[in-house]
């Protein structure tokens, strides 16, 4: 017991030192303290976002979310009208229990943007705050032309990859974006007390895309000495749309299961990178969407190769758990494969759950792999089919109140199904956690008898 306590004490000391080091590396991301608003305080003050006492966190959360809500209520015409329709004002938010009253926007609103020149006006309409003059060039600007026109003026408009081929467009200002990056770094540092010598990310290069999953990892350059991106080509909206939807999907036919040439290049690059550091003593971090990492590991297994990085290796996944052709891959099975093929223990194989619409990230703990919510500035909600909050332990639609979203109303109902627990059943961190497996809600649009029957037949076809 004494030995375990000593080991734990050492581990906690290591955690604290690591957090301090990360904060130092990210000093440029932190605005001057005398300019902090309550949302800034909730993000930048805690040394560890997952170890704030519940009492202190609740106080921070209320102040932060109320501040941000008030900002959007007063300065965002679209959101103000929504609040009027729902008869809610900032004066109605007095305690943490009142936070449920804040009107939530379905995520589909951010997907329903127009195309062409109207996209620019739509972004302006959704945005909270002052905007610089935006100049869009070209007679027929593309989606990326318009997004880039905002971003060259200091904004950070980004979009998701969107499984349906429709992007969620989120207009961040630079303050909100840097807050998201800082939040991501701190979330990761809380669970992985190690600064790795070499990092390979199987995400799009942040300098060559407006995809959120690519852009948000740009702070890796500030945290790690040697960072490489395996996906180095430009990933535009058009490329993404073809990859994620394609005509074949819209007609219901199955997409090809043949690995693309690009994916093969990524796999080869990753294997070479792993081989380079296999024989060294240096630490490595491999990050990417699960489907890409599975491709890499399957290729290694096919060639009879394996590595033994042990404690000097870290794997971080993000981007959802559908592997090929929408088949899900349980995270537990993935961790076992990582251990078998890369020799990296399960405690060092963690998943990150985040959405383009949110600036808070849920990070798995190494002890139990539950997804911890950053509860000082993000209030997670779970809603039933009638969009009423449910209690802990119930499955429902994930919604959130994001205090860090200063340039758009980040009070959103997502398309994910989650189960929230009051605290982690394994580790000693005090805040709420999600079950590790997050699901997509089946499309909830209404359809007639035909579609209901179709769903039943689909289910019945599963033998």
């Amino acid at each position, binding site marked *: 017991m004494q030995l375990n306590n000593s080991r734990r004490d050492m581990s906690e000391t290591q955690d604290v030192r690591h957090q301090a080091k990360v904060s130092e590396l990210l000093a440029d991301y932190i605005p001057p303290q005398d300019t902090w608003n309550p949302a800034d305080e909730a993000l930048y003050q805690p040394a560890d976002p997952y170890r704030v006492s519940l009492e202190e966190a609740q106080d921070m959360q209320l102040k932060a979310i109320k501040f941000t809500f008030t900002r959007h209520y007063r300065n965002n015409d679209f959101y103000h009208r929504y609040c009027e329709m729902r008869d809610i004002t900032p004066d109605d938010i007095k305690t943490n229990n009142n936070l449920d009253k804040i009107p939530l926007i379905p995520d589909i609103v951010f997907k329903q943007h127009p195309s062409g020149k109207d996209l620019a006006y739509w972004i302006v309409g959704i945005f909270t705050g002052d905007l610089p003059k935006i100049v869009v060039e070209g007679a027929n600007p593309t989606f990326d032309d318009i997004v880039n026109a905002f971003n060259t003026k200091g904004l950070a408009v980004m979009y998701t990859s969107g499984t349906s081929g429709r992007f969620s467009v989120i207009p961040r200002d630079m303050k909100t974006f840097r807050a998201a990056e800082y939040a991501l770094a701190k979330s990761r540092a809380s669970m992985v007390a190690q600064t790795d010598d070499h990092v390979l990310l199987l995400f799009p290069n942040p300098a060559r895309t407006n995809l959120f999953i690519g852009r948000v990892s740009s702070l890796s350059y500030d945290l790690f000495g040697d960072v490489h991106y395996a996906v180095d080509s430009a990933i535009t909206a058009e490329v993404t749309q073809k990859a994620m939807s394609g005509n074949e999907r819209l007609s219901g036919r199955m997409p090809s299961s043949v690995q693309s040439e690009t994916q093969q290049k990524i796999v080869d690059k990753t294997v070479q990178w792993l081989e380079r550091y296999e024989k060294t003593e240096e630490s490595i971090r491999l990050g990417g969407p699960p489907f890409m990492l599975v491709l890499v590991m399957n290729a290694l297994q096919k060639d009879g190769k394996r590595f033994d990085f042990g404690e000097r290796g870290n794997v971080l996944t993000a981007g959802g758990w559908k592997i090929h052709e929408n088949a899900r891959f349980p995270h537990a099975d993935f961790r076992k494969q990582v251990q078998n093929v890369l020799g990296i223990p399960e405690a060092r194989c963690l998943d990150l759950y985040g959405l383009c619409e949110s600036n808070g990230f849920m990070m798995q703990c190494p002890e139990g792999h539950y997804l911890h919510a950053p509860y000082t500035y993000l209030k997670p909600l779970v809603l039933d089919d009638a969009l009423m909050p449910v209690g802990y332990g119930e499955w429902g639609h994930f919604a959130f109140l994001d205090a860090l979203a200063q340039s758009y109303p980040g009070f959103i109902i997502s*398309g994910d199904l989650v189960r929230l627990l009051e605290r982690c059943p394994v580790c000693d961190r005090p805040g709420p956690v999600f079950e590790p497996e997050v699901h997509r809600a089946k499309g909830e649009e209404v359809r007639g008898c035909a579609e209901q029957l179709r769903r039943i037949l689909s289910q019945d076809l599963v033998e």
Partner: protein
Amino acid sequence: MTQVSEITEQGQTSQELPKQSSLAGGFTFAHMLLKKPGALRKFRVMGPDEERYVRPPREYEIPEYRKGMRCCTSNEPYLRPTRWCNPREPKIIAMANELGAYELSDCEFADAAYWFVKTKLVAEMLPLDSVTATLERGTGTCYHLISLWIALCRAAGIKARYKTFMMKLPDEVLSQEMTEQGAMTANFFNTGTPEGEGEVCIDGNWVVGHVAMRPEILARVGLPIPKLGEDAIGMTFKLVPGTIKRFESLPRRLGIGLKAGTWLAPAAMERANVLIQTEMLPPGRRIIEEAGGIEAYDRKARNVQELFSAEEITRRTKAKRKQVVKFKE
């Protein structure tokens, strides 16, 4: 009362589903079963632990038919009895009179009958049968419900007809959690099964009515409730272009198809019926109750839908804020 035989379009080919789409649907279904032959048993047999469908009690009383009740006896197109839609059945005449036939204006009656069918009957998958059977059960497929509305209007002397179209599954449905099985059936229903509405002729104009979907089902997903005159295409469904058809009588092929489907896959039909009762209606009912009733809910849903629409956001972006964007060609 002498039952008048059902009359189809005289000297015209009924506007049936395009043969190509029906064949394609059939081939897709056969392909599905070839790939997953074990599914056939599942389509046909309910599991021992599965919840069984229990038809809900009817939500209204059927008035008694009395001799002398007014009804339309014209043999004009759109007023006469047609396949599975006989407006001269006694209980139909009685219900039409109860709803105000020949007392209310055509528009008022069509509206009364519209809301009666829309709010008092509920979806159930079963073969096509008479409008009296539908009225007695209080349930039916969209075609049963549309036929009932049409029969009530025809009984009241108001011309009425069917309108069908192919529904396009939303992009999100086709790609979210789309398993191999889901993709197969998505293709099947995108080619072979229409959605339906009715149309009534008021003051010389055809007016659409989407009676077949209970408000609770729409409320569950936050959609407004179409009124008489509002097309479900666009509001509720996405249209496969070029597929709208209008006809006086339901095509025989539809009845054969539904009957075949019920024979071939009775368990699948029963599961769909259970789903409607247990998962689709209750949450919507709660939402409507919390909103303060159907009208109050609908008002809120329309306001929210308008507020969130891209067109509205773009339009309302104040002129001052729009000026921050300049386009240089």
